[in-house]
């Protein structure tokens, strides 16, 4: 079963991606799907801003507007930001720890397909009678009473894609724990690997409450249960808790890997090791832990009482401390360094002031008594876009430029990259800075319009213009991608020339089996150490030998397809459609049948033989 160096037709390539279990290809799938959803979510954002540009606008109707914001938030968080981070985790993390692959290649593929089909399912709601319209938080009283199937799409779609995320998280955890190359101790792991690890652990503990919440809501809406039906003894606050027990850790699941990306970029382009590495690791773990203890700060105005509010307020503020440690460590990584302003470094540089602004407004909203004013206003919208766009999205853009050569073997154009940066960065501040003021001037969030004469008009217009700049930036980025891929100028192992971590010690893109021989890691920044000693490559930790590889499989796709079908059955079951129950059953049969096939059919993988590896090397040299 030797699969390399075969020329494939278009159909072959598609089939290859449908069945792949290779973490690098799955990374590309995540990048494409996540990128697509980012464009969708971004378009929705643009629609929001068009509608709000002037008072009493009727660009979209009130109901549609609620669908748009709900889908914008949901899409961006679940279907764009997380998958894009997963793309980099998949592409880079196994390389950074010197592994051949992730711990569970099969589950890796399954996780991707679950996410993707869940996202497709959710977005199909636009064409099947209306999208969810109760906000991305889908608070129970409104969500349970929302008409049509929108919220059902939300509940089922997130259920499916959440399962994929959970599987992905477990996979990364196991990978980091068992698959590290010889010498790669925990305290030698690059920061991006560390943040992946901690974020994955958070996924493991944060997603189950979401699953439960979604299940309860599904039972209420589709099967007549009464969890949130007050008249029947139900209680809507349960949903709020379950959602935020998940929802707050979720935002740190987003930001920690982003921190990881920037940590790599800062030290690479400063040509310095990360300042205070061990305190960075400590801060990461601490943020992860504290992240679970603060969720009720989203519920200050729910009426939990002063004791709960005070405790959660103080706990929330505490997160500022480890985050501050990180900020200063980054600054002092550059201090005394030799800072090269590449495109990724532009983003990293722009990130610092942007994120600090967002973080400190986070602490401001954490002051419970004052949050009674901020809550559910544009101040909060400004806060979280400052941390999310100024943190996570800038990191995603930075990572895209930084690791593009590693993933695709060719460099994105630097000039276009910088143009993208300026457009996006200016647009970002233009859009969201002014929203702080809108909030405290009395503009609630999630309003489809506002009346003139309240002092909101000019500021909203400014904000909308900013969104235009951001769109232009994104379009330049798309152009850049197209131009780069058409030109396709190949690059070597270490195109930035300052690479420090193991992924730069291997060709771009790496061979499908990654390291021919597992590398021997002698310290933090393993590749840099070797480079400083004048070596060109890593010292191998083992002789050349057979490499065990997993087989490709179509089963992940099938398992997911079954759930996708079943979800339609469950959804229309509530309408008393006669075909709904059979569809539900057929879908589940496909899923469980495929799982059965998987467990009954042995899959031992295959071996790349030593000789083949040698031949390939010769071929490469010739």
């Amino acid at each position, binding site marked *: 079963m030797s699969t390399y160096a075969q020329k494939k037709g278009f159909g072959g390539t598609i089939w290859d991606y449908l069945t792949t279990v290779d973490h690098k290809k799955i990374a590309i799938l995540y990048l494409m799907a996540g990128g697509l959803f980012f464009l969708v979510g971004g378009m929705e954002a643009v629609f929001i801003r068009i509608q709000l540009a002037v008072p009493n606008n009727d660009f979209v109707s009130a109901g549609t507007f609620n669908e748009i914001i709900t889908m914008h938030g949901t899409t961006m968080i679940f279907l764009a930001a997380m998958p894009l981070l997963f793309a980099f985790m998949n592409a880079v993390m196994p390389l950074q720890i010197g592994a051949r692959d992730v711990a569970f290649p099969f589950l890796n593929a399954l996780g991707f397909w679950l996410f993707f089909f869940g996202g497709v399912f959710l977005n199909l709601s636009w064409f099947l009678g209306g999208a969810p319209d109760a906000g991305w938080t889908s608070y129970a009283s409104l969500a349970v009473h929302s008409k049509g199937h929108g919220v059902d799409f939300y509940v089922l779609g997130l259920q499916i894609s959440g399962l994929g995320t959970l599987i992905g998280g477990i996979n990364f955890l196991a990978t980091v724990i068992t698959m590290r190359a010889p010498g790669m101790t925990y305290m030698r792991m690059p920061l991006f690997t560390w943040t992946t690890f901690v974020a994955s652990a958070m996924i*493991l503990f944060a997603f189950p409450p979401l699953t439960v919440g979604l299940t309860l809501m599904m039972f209420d809406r589709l099967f007549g249960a009464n969890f949130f039906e007050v008249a029947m003894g139900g209680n809507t606050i349960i949903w709020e*808790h379950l959602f935020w*027990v998940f929802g707050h850790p979720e935002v740190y699941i987003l930001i920690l890997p982003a921190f990881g990306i920037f940590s790599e970029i800062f030290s690479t382009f400063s040509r310095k090791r990360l300042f205070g590495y061990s305190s960075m690791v400590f801060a990461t773990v601490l943020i992860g832990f504290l992240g*679970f203890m603060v969720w*009720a700060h989203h519920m200050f105005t729910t009426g*939990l*009482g002063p004791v709960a509010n005070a405790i959660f307020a103080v706990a929330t503020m505490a997160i500022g401390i480890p985050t501050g440690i990180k900020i200063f460590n980054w600054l002092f990584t550059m201090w005394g360094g030799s800072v090269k302003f590449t495109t990724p470094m532009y983003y990293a540089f722009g990130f610092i002031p942007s994120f600090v602004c967002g973080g400190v407004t986070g602490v401001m909203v954490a002051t419970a008594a004052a949050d009674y004013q901020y809550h559910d206003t544009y101040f909060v919208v400004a806060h979280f876009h400052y941390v999310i766009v100024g943190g996570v999205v800038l990191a995603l853009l930075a990572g895209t430029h930084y690791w593009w050569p590693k993933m695709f073997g060719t460099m994105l154009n630097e000039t276009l990259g910088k143009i993208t940066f300026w457009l996006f960065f200016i647009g970002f501040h233009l859009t969201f800075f002014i929203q702080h003021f809108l909030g405290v001037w009395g503009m609630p969030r999630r309003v489809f319009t506002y009346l003139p004469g309240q002092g909101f008009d000019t500021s909203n217009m400014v904000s909308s213009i900013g969104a235009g700049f951001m769109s232009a930036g994104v379009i330049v980025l798309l152009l850049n991608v197209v131009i780069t891929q058409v030109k396709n100028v190949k690059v070597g192992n270490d195109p930035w020339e300052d690479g420090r971590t193991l992924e730069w010690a291997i060709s771009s893109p790496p061979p499908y089996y990654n390291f021919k021989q597992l590398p021997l890691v002698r310290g933090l920044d393993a590749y840099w150490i070797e480079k400083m000693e004048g070596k060109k490559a890593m010292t191998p930790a083992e002789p050349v030998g057979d490499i065990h590889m997993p087989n490709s499989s179509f089963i992940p796709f099938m398992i997911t397809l079954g759930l996708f079908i079943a979800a339609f059955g469950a959804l229309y079951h509530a309408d008393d459609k006669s075909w709904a129950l059979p569809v539900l059953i057929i879908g589940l049969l496909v899923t469980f049948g495929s799982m059965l096939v998987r467990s009954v059919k042995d899959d031992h993988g295959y071996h790349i033989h030593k000789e083949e590896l040698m031949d390939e090397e010769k071929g490469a040299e010739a």
Partner: protein
Amino acid sequence: MTNQPLSSSNPRVDLEYRRKKNAEEMRHQVISFSIMIFLTFIAFAAVAAKGFTAWFIIPFILLLAVVQVIFQLFYFMHMSHEGHEAPSMFLFTGVFMAFVIVLTFMTIIWW
């Protein structure tokens, strides 16, 4: 990533030792099973007796449940064996989270 050595220099001795150890372990497991059954009976009896106040019974049976679960985890699921460092770290983090969630649901969902 290599396997554990399958046998030491003297395979027979090693095997003998292993068999003994397994049997020993099994004995422990039977004992812990008996204790679990015993604890279960006590818990049921405490409730059936009707004589105690709820203030006593509830903490008491919860304690019994915790003890029983510890037996399960450490004897039946071998969590004390080496090689279970990561599993126990993650399991106990999960238990901690579980505690926090249950605590908040019992205190700040209050009507």
